[in-house]
């Protein structure tokens, strides 16, 4: 049976990682996942608005949830930030009657109501359920790809809100990636934050965190980094450009989205997967990827 979701893109993907959206849509189509447009979606507010004013954040994400709910649809998002924000707000509004009343007072001014009946999922969660189907569709194994997979924080923490995978030993997306014949290498700082939320407060500290991450990925012998989040990807595919260690050695590693890796192994068109838009050059792994 075809699964159906309204797809919540957020702001970062249409702004700088349209290749994540196109690769997600291509993979979804190949797996019979129906992605409906999310009419009326605004920003989720993410940790930025939660930091400024929690009531406004609850209202902003609450409105997005209520919209999908009014149409009787579940939500899927390929962004950890949106996933974390929508799930977190959903959690707070479920648990806390006072906050739910406040938010519904606000939503009333625009003719909406939060009821809490819509499911919010990350795209990789949907993919994990379809792993047997994905296995059957692998036609172009990616032997030799050594992936430093970065799950990101809000996909798995806090586990009381996310609940998708083990918060200390996540393995589900790694399993998906290894279906392609690639290896998901263990690396010391795998679970560490990428630092992207700090770009707004201190680019210097954000870059130092990224530097530590990249050194760890290099030490593990990875030949690429893979993410499932546009915020994390900003670190690995934008901020990492020109990044060096203390001795001046380049710390750049090709950065791919999980949907690009799966799409390539499933034999989908590299152009549709938007590989030309990846910023860190893919040359070192081009042969493995077959591009």
């Amino acid at each position, binding site marked *: 049976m075809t699964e159906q979701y309204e797809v919540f893109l957020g702001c970062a993907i*249409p702004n700088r990682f349209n290749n994540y959206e*196109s690769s997600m849509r291509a993979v979804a189509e190949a797996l019979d996942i129906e992605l409906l447009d999310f009419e009326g979606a605004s*920003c989720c507010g993410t940790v930025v608005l939660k*930091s*400024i*004013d929690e009531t*406004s954040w609850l209202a902003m994400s609450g409105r997005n949830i209520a919209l999908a709910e009014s149409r009787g649809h579940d939500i899927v998002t390929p962004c950890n930030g949106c996933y974390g924000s929508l799930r977190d707000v959903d959690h707070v509004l479920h648990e806390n009657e006072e906050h739910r009343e406040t938010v519904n007072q606000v939503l009333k001014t625009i003719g909406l109501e939060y009821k809490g009946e819509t499911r919010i999922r990350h795209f990789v969660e949907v993919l994990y359920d379809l792993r047997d189907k994905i296995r059957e569709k692998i036609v172009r194994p990616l032997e030799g790809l050594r992936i430093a997979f970065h799950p990101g924080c809000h996909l798995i*923490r806090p586990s009381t809100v996310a609940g998708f995978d083990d918060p200390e030993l996540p393995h589900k997306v790694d399993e998906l990636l290894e279906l392609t014949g690639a290896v998901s290498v263990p690396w010391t700082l795998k679970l*560490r934050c990428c630092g992207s939320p700090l770009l707004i407060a201190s680019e210097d500290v954000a870059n130092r965190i990224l530097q530590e991450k990249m050194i760890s990925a290099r030490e593990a012998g990875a030949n690429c980094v893979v993410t499932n989040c546009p915020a994390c990807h900003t670190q690995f595919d934008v901020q990492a450009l020109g990044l060096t260690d203390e001795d001046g050695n380049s710390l750049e590693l090709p950065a791919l989205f999980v949907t690009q890796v799966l799409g390539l192994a499933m034999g989908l068109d590299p152009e549709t997967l938007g590989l030309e838009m990846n910023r860190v050059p893919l040359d070192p792994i081009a042969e493995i990827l077959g591009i």
Partner: protein
Amino acid sequence: MALTMEETWGQFKTFEGAKFEVLDPNFTREVSGLIGGQDLTACFQCAKCSAGCPVSDKVNIQVHELMRMLLFGLKEVLQTDMVWLCTTCYTCQERCPQGISITDIIFGLKNMAFRRGIAPPGYLAARKGLYDTGRLYEPTDWEREDLGLDEVPEFDINDIRKMFDKTGLMKLEEE
């Protein structure tokens, strides 16, 4: 290596020589009322939070120190760099043996600091952007065209502004 900051935030840099005139129980109570703030007194200073924190070696005041400042009712906590350099990774909260929602408490502290005008300038710009456009970033149309993607669905910005007028987002400092 500790940070040196010129900004309005992160001005409380060390406990050494610091004099605290007031231990304010009302402040502790206020923090306890935040989302996730109810278990504040359970902290026994094991410092596991700081052990897993990605910025522990980059801040002047670490998470476990922040937690102790809260319990003592020290409002100076709002001026520590730990508040705005928390990456929101939730590692501390996930690992706290006492089940304290540390990261969520820090979100609440950010809200309190913002109202007092203690925040990195980027957050002021982000608030204005959210109010004016309902987004943090705008779509890049030429890339979408190249990839054959449809336009991003529209929404009515007036709905967003109506909500934010009701929550008082643009007037937080006046409360």
